[in-house]
């Protein structure tokens, strides 16, 4: 079994690197958007809140694969129209944008719940102390929100990591696609798909350990 994998080991590891790139890229994209939009979910009047609610409902009910296809094929059409000449979206960008857009919806829900659990007194106290609304959010609300959201964020990271395998379907040569290629070339599908699965499991387990550590580190903050 080992002599079958050995010639492809470098390729698999390169694939793993790209997998991490896609997953990390879309997770960060989703998280940044979610942090920016999270305060909007708390305001009662803001019409944007309704838009966000609708967005979350749609994303939750539609397969990730469909979103990837939409961005991959649709992006090419939009960009071709905009630029005037044929312009193809590469699978990496399409993957990061699509999975980021999906992660954004779930992360927004996680942050919304975390935000709601912060007592109103915190906000009032910050304002009474003379902090501006912006300072209040950055220095008082944001750190508490992220800390409370940490278990949810860790979970979502694992989901994004596993969803990144779907981008292989539009041709991105990440870990999954590399295994498909190796499996086809060697006629040893079981060997390569099991190896890929083990690599994913290893990254998942490592990430879980890191998040558990971070949670423990941050817990004393909360009295």
């Amino acid at each position: 079994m080992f002599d079958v994998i050995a010639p492809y080991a470098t390729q698999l590891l390169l694939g793993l690197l790209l997998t991490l790139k896609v997953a990390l890229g879309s997770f960060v994209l989703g998280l940044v958007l979610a942090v920016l939009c999270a305060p909007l979910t708390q305001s009662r009047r803001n019409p944007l809140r309704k838009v966000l609610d609708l967005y979350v409902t749609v994303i939750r009910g539609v397969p990730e694969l469909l979103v990837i296809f939409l961005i991959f094929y649709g992006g090419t059409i939009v960009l071709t129209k905009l630029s005037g000449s044929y312009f193809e979206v590469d699978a990496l960008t399409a993957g990061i944008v699509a999975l980021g857009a999906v992660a954004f919806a779930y992360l927004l829900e996680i942050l919304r719940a975390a935000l709601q659990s912060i007592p109103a007194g915190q906000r009032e106290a910050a304002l009474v102390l003379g902090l501006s609304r912006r300072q209040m959010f950055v220095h008082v609300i944001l750190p508490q929100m992220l800390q409370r959201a940490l278990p949810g964020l860790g979970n979502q990271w694992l989901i994004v990591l596993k969803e990144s395998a779907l981008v292989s379907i539009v041709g991105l040569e990440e870990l999954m696609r590399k295994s498909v290629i190796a499996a086809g070339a060697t006629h040893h599908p079981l060997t390569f798909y099991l190896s890929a699965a083990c690599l994913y499991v290893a990254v998942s387990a490592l990430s879980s350990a890191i998040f558990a550590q971070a949670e423990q580190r941050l817990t004393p903050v909360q009295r």
Partner: protein
Amino acid sequence: MSYEILMAAIPIVWDGLWLTLVITLSAFVLGQVVALPLAMAADARSRFVSAPARAYIFFVRGSPMLVQLFIIYYGLGSLEAVRDSIFWPILKEPLGCAILAVGLNSAAYMGALLRGAISQVPDGQGEAARTLGLSPWQTLTRVTLPQAYRYVLPVLGNEITLVMKASSLASAVTVVEMTGAARALVARTYAPFEVFTVAGALYLMLALGFAALFRAIERKTAIPGLSGNDA
């Protein structure tokens, strides 16, 4: 967006709907059937029972479903022992593999969830049931599980939506369910927005339908006097 293409896409994508439903419902049922013994095995006293169950949950939850689908469809099919076995009629069909992959994946998540739900039921209830002379089987089916399942019911509605979304992976092994039908149509018409909007809307409709169904079940099975659905 062209209105004509949108309208023309509806019947074609709709044709994939029933396969999406077949995969979703069969995989969901398979997941539920496997999840319970898995959850109980994971908490069994004997290590020889609990260790494999826990390892299964760990590995399935730690790797992408697409890999699992490929392991089942391409991987198992490459083994001669599998091709000679009685399971071959199912494993040689992409549809059967898709249902198996999605179902077994769902089972791992549900198993972990049920484990938590069962441990939520206070120990005193089991002791009380034994004192009243109930057999272990009666205790399980009459006391523990009714409470555990009420506890997981809100999550079950969520799970069937996740299974429905996962059913789209079947298109990766040539099953022409909704996503597969939509993608094939895009290849012909080159109208991704119209076609994927139709597919997305149909998926959303199914998801909202499942959500409504499970809310109704929750209301029906709620115990009067207990707030919400948690016991």
